[in-house]
């Protein structure tokens, strides 16, 4: 398989690829490389942090005292930071690469948040488990998660007083899209989801006495529908397959939709709603490797941060700083802006986020220094500038960067070829001529220059 194609595939199905693995895969055929990606993601490794103290509060009593309630909230807040960090670390060192990328994708489709970390961890693992599975089982699992019944108020949705929140977002944001259902469909389907709730441990509970067992009319069908029936009827609409295929196309292929490609995808997906089959089709199709799809997407903040870590591993002594950076870049895992999630594409970039993205590699990895040494000159400023930064910010900003790993991984790469491994998009001509006027002081310094370019924001 062509080197450039492998890099593209690994940026979309993962977070980039290092020279050794790249050259090993280059000896294989395209089918083998794609098979390997799926083979590697067969298993599911749940993401688990230590929640023992919370678990004991949740399982100890039938009613939680107000004192324990407070303790629970406090513990949950702290542990949510741990879970965020654990998730980022998982993305950096995944045992199942594609499954993890898909989990990240689905977390922005089935958007959910909760202040109970046990429920949100369980939700996150549910995403991971179904990420490459059957979409119908997936939607049903989502509808029955404790965190979701809380987030979209299904818990409060009762026969006497329906709450439409979940029914509306299920159709608008999870399956069909705005304009493909009526207000009456929402009212009727809200009735079908009455009774959905959970116990303290976060297990699904169906409360029969608050369920509305009356006859409902939904998408022209009439019957005593429950929540599962509603999901069946939604998935019968071809629009549902189209809606999901468009989301996948925007995320994995290109933020400009191509109707022909979408139609092919819908034909594959609508048959049995098998997500793995659909992803195989996408990665195997010729159009996936068209030039207009390579290096033309703007990385999400998490893709940017994780990709940076793949090149040069970084550890934060204070995990709150990692969260702070996510927030400033516009994407904090487990804390979506609203139920519609992040919009993605160009909307990641404005005056503020571009500034931070350009500065971050040098700040995190090189004491905020970017070499500007002209050809033939020696870099006299480097030591002074770096130590000045360390003296001012070193104590506030404690991070460990691992350039040894970088040097090991790039041992056999010539410094002048570094660009081919760090950037996926073509260099802008003016930037290229400026870079060519500078001295390539070392692989490390040249690497920082490359990572400080607008081009590095592309994948």
């Amino acid at each position: 398989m062509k080197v450039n194609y492998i890099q593209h595939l690994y940026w979309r199905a993962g977070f980039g690829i290092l020279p050794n693995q790249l050259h090993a895969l280059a000896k294989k055929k395209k089918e083998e490389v794609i098979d390997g990606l799926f083979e590697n993601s067969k298993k599911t490794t749940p993401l688990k942090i230590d929640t023992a103290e919370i678990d004991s509060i949740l399982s100890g009593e039938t009613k939680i005292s107000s004192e324990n309630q407070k303790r629970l909230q406090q513990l949950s807040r702290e542990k949510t930071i741990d879970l965020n960090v654990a998730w980022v670390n998982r993305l950096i060192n995944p045992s199942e690469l594609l499954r993890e990328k898909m989990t990240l994708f689905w977390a922005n489709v089935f958007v959910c948040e909760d202040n109970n970390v046990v429920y949100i961890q369980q939700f996150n693992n549910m995403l991971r488990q179904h990420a490459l599975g059957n979409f119908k089982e997936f939607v049903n699992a989502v509808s029955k998660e404790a965190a979701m019944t809380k987030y979209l108020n299904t818990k409060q949705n009762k026969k006497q007083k329906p709450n439409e929140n979940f029914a509306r977002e299920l159709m608008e944001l999870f399956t069909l899209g705005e304009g493909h259902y009526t207000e009456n469909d929402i009212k009727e389907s809200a009735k079908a989801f009455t009774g959905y709730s959970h116990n303290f441990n976060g297990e699904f509970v169906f409360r029969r006495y608050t369920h509305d067992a009356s006859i409902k009319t939904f998408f022209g069908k009439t019957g005593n529908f429950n929540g599962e029936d509603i999901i069946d009827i939604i998935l019968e609409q071809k629009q549902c397959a189209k809606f999901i295929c468009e989301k996948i196309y925007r995320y994995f292929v290109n933020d400009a939709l191509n109707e022909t490609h979408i139609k092919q995808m819908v034909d594959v997906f609508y048959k049995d709603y098998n997500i793995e089959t659909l992803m195989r089709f996408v990665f195997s199709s010729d159009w996936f490797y068209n030039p207009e799809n390579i290096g033309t997407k703007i990385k999400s903040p998490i893709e940017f941060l994780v990709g940076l870590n793949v090149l040069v591993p970084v550890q934060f002594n204070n995990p709150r700083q990692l969260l702070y950076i996510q927030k400033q870049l516009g994407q904090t895992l487990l804390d979506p802006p609203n139920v519609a999630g992040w919009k993605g594409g160009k909307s990641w970039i404005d005056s503020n986020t571009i500034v931070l993205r350009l500065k971050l590699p040098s700040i995190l990895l090189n004491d905020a220094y970017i070499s500007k040494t002209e050809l033939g000159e020696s870099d006299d400023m480097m030591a002074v500038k770096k130590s000045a930064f360390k003296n001012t910010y070193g104590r506030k900003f404690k991070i460990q960067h691992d350039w040894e790993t970088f040097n090991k991984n790039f041992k056999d790469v010539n410094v002048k070829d570094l660009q081919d491994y760090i950037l996926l998009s073509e260099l802008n001509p003016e930037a290229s001529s400026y870079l060519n006027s500078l001295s390539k002081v070392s692989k490390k310094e040249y690497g920082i220059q490359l990572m400080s370019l607008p081009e590095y924001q592309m994948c």
Partner: protein
Amino acid sequence: MDRRKFLKQSSLASSLFFVPSFVKAFEQVASSSLGYKRLVIIQLSGGNDGLNTVIPFRNDLYYKERPTLGIPKNEVINLNDELGLHSSLMPLKRLYDNGYLSIINNVGYPNPVRSHFRSMDIWQTATDSNKFSQTGWLGRYLDNYGKQPYNVIEVDDTLSLALKGENINGIATQDAKSLFNLLRDPYFKNLGKHQNDAHLSEHNLGYLYKTMIEAQSSAKYIYETSKTVTSKKEYPNNKFGNQLKTTAQFINSGLETKVFYTSLSGFDTHVNQLNAQKRLLKIYAESVEAFVEDLKANNTFKDTLVLTFSEFGRRVNQNASVGTDHGTANNVFVIGDNLKKQGVYNNMASLSDLDDNGDLKFEIDFRTIYATVLNKWLVVDDSKILNRSFNQMNFI
């Protein structure tokens, strides 16, 4: 531009200068001598319950639909025989008494959407509810009448759709100094040099370069201008209070920014609404009062108009969780000096004539408020920005 303003401005300018190509430069000269009109937007995110904000305390239907959620008569701050404010809004009542507040009731749009995301999109893009737009109304204002991202500032860390234009975006900043320091490196200056339009118009990468270059010049300008002023006024110590404090500092320093965007979130009160809304309205009212006093002390209040909205109101009928579900029409607050119509602008919505969902039927399209503000306050062609012409109202 109305006739009075036109005469005032042209008498100041030498007639020699009064040719079209100088109009823009002239406006900047005029701004320092005549006062530079600024608009401040406050977005209440999540859908504020307007019926418990401006309360129809004489209406039996209100208490019938909200048996445990209605605000009791004795807690309401009376405005007139029919309407009163929530008890957290005492500071707003003081503005009302001074004639600085106009309450526009029953604002919405045709075919209302009850999803936060979509309805907020509609308010921010000013499009019909069945149309989608990638640009916001203030972004298009910037496209047509602005030059630099700093002409429209969101006083926050991140930029909303409202401030995103076709060719140019506003800028978000709560801390002008740190933004400036981030881009001072000559490496980025050199990358931005010699860039030509052809490359800058390339789809995603060109957009990245263009945004970088605009950020460089904006950050420098905002920092160097605003650092000359610090606010001495005490504001409530919370995020929203700080946003308004920074806004006042920007305004008082003479920054050439026409629009400031701020927001307060948490209004999505499906469950146990009473305490949540009480707390939020208190934050809102106290911060706004401090802001108005700060501007008055610096003689900039007369040239500042403050507009407060939320993406929708909430259902008339309370739900089973002592909260309210997403609704439709809502009230909008306009705060400023010399309002043409002070106090309550129009009557409350009917609580008996509801739509099929049990929601209020709107009377005033929010875009007529935008059109009025654009036309009469910012003195630009509103139809160019809203892509259609709307009636003008007479609150300013």
